[in-house]
């Protein structure tokens, strides 16, 4: 089983090809797989479809891949914090699909859970339902939403063992455990790589069955995207 452990982020993404579809965990800059993203920027792989709740800032996270023009298409729920992204969308260099956040994560869960589609009341009567089947359940309009899968999931956890069991910290959990279930290949970077047996089995958040490769991340910036006092932003 120790064949899941890879030496570093460059080795971990060795087979990510042009045009790949990739889930990227994290909410804003919290809990993003920053080492895998940097490796992908180094590798320079183009024409990517990225699925992530946000797009990061210009300097960090997915922003690095936008600067290098490696992204063709983005599926997200909120992209309001990145001016470069705005310019690329307006210039037609980048396709954008916006999905309500709860629908986005539920579509990914469905992809991992073998459910092809589900009905949700979210977005009924709004542009989020445009072009989609709708149906009434108990007097409530609902939208048919499809499962979402990807070629790769890049996730970040606080601790992980050699079997791929993962434990997240605080709100850095967010999309990571769900995305880990719904890709053909899931790559987890962790701050602390521990021996199998070191994690409490009752408190494993992502069982190792979902993780194909695991590595200790080379560097964690521990960046905070926003501060109450905007003057202090961008340390």
């Amino acid at each position: 089983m120790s064949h899941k452990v890879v030496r570093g982020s460059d080795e971990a993404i060795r087979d990510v090809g042009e045009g790949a579809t990739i889930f990227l965990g994290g909410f804003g800059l919290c809990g993003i797989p920053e080492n895998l993203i940097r490796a992908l920027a180094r590798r320079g792989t183009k024409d990517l479809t990225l699925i992530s709740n946000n797009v990061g800032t210009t300097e960090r996270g997915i922003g690095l891949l936008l600067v290098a023009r490696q992204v063709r298409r983005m599926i997200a729920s909120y992209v309001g914090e990145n001016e470069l992204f705005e310019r690329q969308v307006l210039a037609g260099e980048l396709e954008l699909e916006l999905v309500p956040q709860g629908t986005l994560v539920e579509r990914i869960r469905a992809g991992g859970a073998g459910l092809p589609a589900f009905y949700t009341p979210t977005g009924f009567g709004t542009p989020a339902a445009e072009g989609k089947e709708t149906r009434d359940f108990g007097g409530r309009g609902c939208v048919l939403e499809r499962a979402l899968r990807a070629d790769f999931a890049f996730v970040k956890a606080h601790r992980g063992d050699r079997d791929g069991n993962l434990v997240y910290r605080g709100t850095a959990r967010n999309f990571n455990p769900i995305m880990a279930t719904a890709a053909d290949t899931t790559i987890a970077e962790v701050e602390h790589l521990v021996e199998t047996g070191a994690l409490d089995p009752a408190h494993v958040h992502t069982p190792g069955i979902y993780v194909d490769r695991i590595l200790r991340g080379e560097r964690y910036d521990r960046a905070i995207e926003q501060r109450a006092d905007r003057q202090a932003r961008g340390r």
Partner: protein
Amino acid sequence: MTERSSRERIVRRAAAELRDGSYVNLGIGLPSEVADHVPPDIRVIFHTENGMLGVGRTPPPGEEDPDLVNASKLPVTPTEGCSYFDSADSFAMIRGGHIDLTVLGALEVDERGNLANWTVPGRLVKGMGGAMDLVTGARRVIVVMTHRTRDGGPKILRRCRLPLTGAGVVDRIITDLAVIDAGAGGLTLREIAPGITIEQVVDATEGRLAIDPEGVRPMEPA
């Protein structure tokens, strides 16, 4: 009235909606300030859709934890009894009707309780984030906003002109001028701010307003 005192009136009035033991999600911006006005005799558990119940205050500078942020990406602190969970569980909680109250901002609200607060076509779309889920799932949806646009135009309309966030979702609107309920029978004026007349509220509102049959009360705390 200054903009600052308008905002504070809205926020304090919204805080009076909080109930002991309730689970509440506050939107970005003005709604988030409601957390600073929780009445001292009650306990409210704040939810943030990125995966936490029991959200605490902003940490002092230098004590921020990058693994602990709210949906505005601002650093927060834990409280006793708090819990963390993933985004699927968080939105199951929202969509499943477990959040007692959400307070959000709006660009437009209309007679049918429709809400528009996520996009202005022609300008760049920033995305709806979790707003569509929140207005669909929360048991009670309160909109807080200034009664008029910066140009003095109405924001409470007969029909929303902007793309909707949710259809028929708003329960109550709290503005600097008034408290208005939305429901099956349309809009009903419940309370007015000190020094404001019913006529002034009606003039500032495009949507048709019924007057509370039990009488319009003063908006408190003023």
